[in-house]
């Protein structure tokens, strides 16, 4: 199995994760989508130096991992490509922001280091929340929930098709990579001289298949509505989950839990 086949299998595994059953899986997509958006907004709203205030927000994804039964390592494994990119966002902060804002014993910590760590943590938290949403909710149900909030049809269809086409493009890439290596034995990767035509071909082939796939959807009655998506009605448990989540976010946002806990243990 080559790298691309593995990637394809991983995409399929996301659907399998979403099809599991747990108290989180059984919630309506609407409740999960709203709570995830609220969580991301809360995370992003923290000041760039407020690392201690941000840290307790880990509680929510940790709880969700526990209740949904999705292993944390699966999340980090699947996000292994994106995580370094997100982590790299604040990498240069320590060079630009050198004023000391904290002393840990004899070690002086600059504002740049704190803001870098805050940015990294923000990125990780947002990715974890997004992963949890996709891993506990079928993608079509997320799209259906987005439509309920009147997100434009075109945008939602674009999102749905992007999700579907990732698999199609990966399949084409797998076939082309195999064909290339069979005629370039011993060569590592794709030679730079072939990149242009390789990418061009990949795009054309993927477009062909994408068109056929979309035609197949249209021929079976798809008209940018999501009647077919598994939709759980918004019930009491969803309201409780949503209200509980919002309360927790408000608490973690407006009360410095880290300082409170610190006050309990350090007198």
């Amino acid at each position: 199995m080559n790298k691309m086949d593995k990637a394809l299998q991983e995409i399929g595994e996301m659907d399998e994760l979403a099809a599991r059953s747990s108290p989180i899986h059984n919630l309506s997509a609407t409740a999960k989508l709203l709570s995830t958006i609220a969580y991301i907004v809360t995370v992003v709203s923290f000041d760039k130096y407020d690392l201690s205030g941000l840290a307790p927000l880990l509680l929510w994804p940790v709880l969700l991992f526990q209740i949904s039964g999705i292993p944390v390592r699966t999340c980090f494994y699947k996000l292994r490509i994106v995580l370094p990119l997100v982590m790299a966002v604040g990498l240069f902060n320590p060079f630009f922001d050198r004023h000391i804002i904290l002393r840990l014993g004899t070690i002086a910590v600059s504002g740049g280091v704190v803001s870098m760590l805050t940015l990294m943590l923000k990125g990780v938290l947002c990715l974890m929340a997004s992963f949890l949403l996709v891993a506990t909710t079928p993608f079509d149900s997320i799209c259906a929930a987005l439509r309920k909030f009147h997100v434009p049809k075109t945008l939602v269809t674009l999102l749905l098709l992007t999700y579907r086409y990732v698999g199609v493009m990966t399949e084409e890439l797998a076939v082309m990579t195999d064909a290339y290596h069979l005629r370039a034995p011993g060569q590592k990767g794709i030679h730079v001289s072939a990149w242009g035509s390789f990418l061009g071909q990949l795009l054309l082939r993927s477009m062909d298949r994408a068109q056929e796939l979309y035609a197949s959807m249209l021929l079976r009655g798809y008209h940018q509505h999501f009647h077919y998506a598994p939709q759980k009605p918004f019930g009491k448990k969803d309201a409780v989950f949503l209200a509980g989540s919002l309360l927790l976010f408000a608490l973690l946002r407006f009360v410095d839990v880290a300082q409170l806990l610190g006050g309990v243990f350090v007198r």
Partner: protein
Amino acid sequence: MIEFQNVSFSYEKGKSVIKGLSFSIADGEAVGLIGANGAGKSTVMKLLLGLLAGEGKILVDGLEVNRANLAAVRKKLGFVLQNSDNQMFMPTVYEDMIFAPLNYMVSREEAEQRVDRVLSQLGLDYLKHRYNHKISGGEKRMAAIATVLAMEPEAILMDEPTSALDPYNRRIVINTIRALPQTKLITSHDLDMILDTCERVILLSDGQIAADGPADEILRDRALLEANHMELPLSLCGRE
């Protein structure tokens, strides 16, 4: 059921792929559409499904294929694609099968009954909750046919339904097609399969009808087939 009235189509200006095509298919008829590569078979299918718009008139059960009638026409036609991977885009076979009925506003209960009925009819109950990326090519082709049958279409169109199948799965697909009571239009280079499943054959050549008649006559005509870059079905070789 299906009627083409003087239909023409060109992808590029001045280069017609379909030239004044006229034919009709009666209710319940099984017709094989054959021809060499580039003869226009796939284009005929796409015109019929409203994926392409040409000149002339195409009627499906009395409804003209045009923008206004597209949804109603497509509801009557089930199309089995050559590449089942492009047809099976939902995570599981069940979700793929229920996709069309729910889009056509059939209640979930009735849609689920349809899924069970079709799976049972094709002996595919074991596939119901399997993931599409984990089933074999033969199973996927049968599942693709099942997704179309769950629509309960009046006519079924198939593009190369037996391509890339091993002999065992090919036979299963052929027996399944034979048992379907709907009107059928099948394009294929597998002439043995056409002989097995269709009573009538339309031979396309350069966008026009080169022959139209009983499958048993056309598929035994070595001279006609060879003149159109085809060969006798293997099962008839040496016995024509």
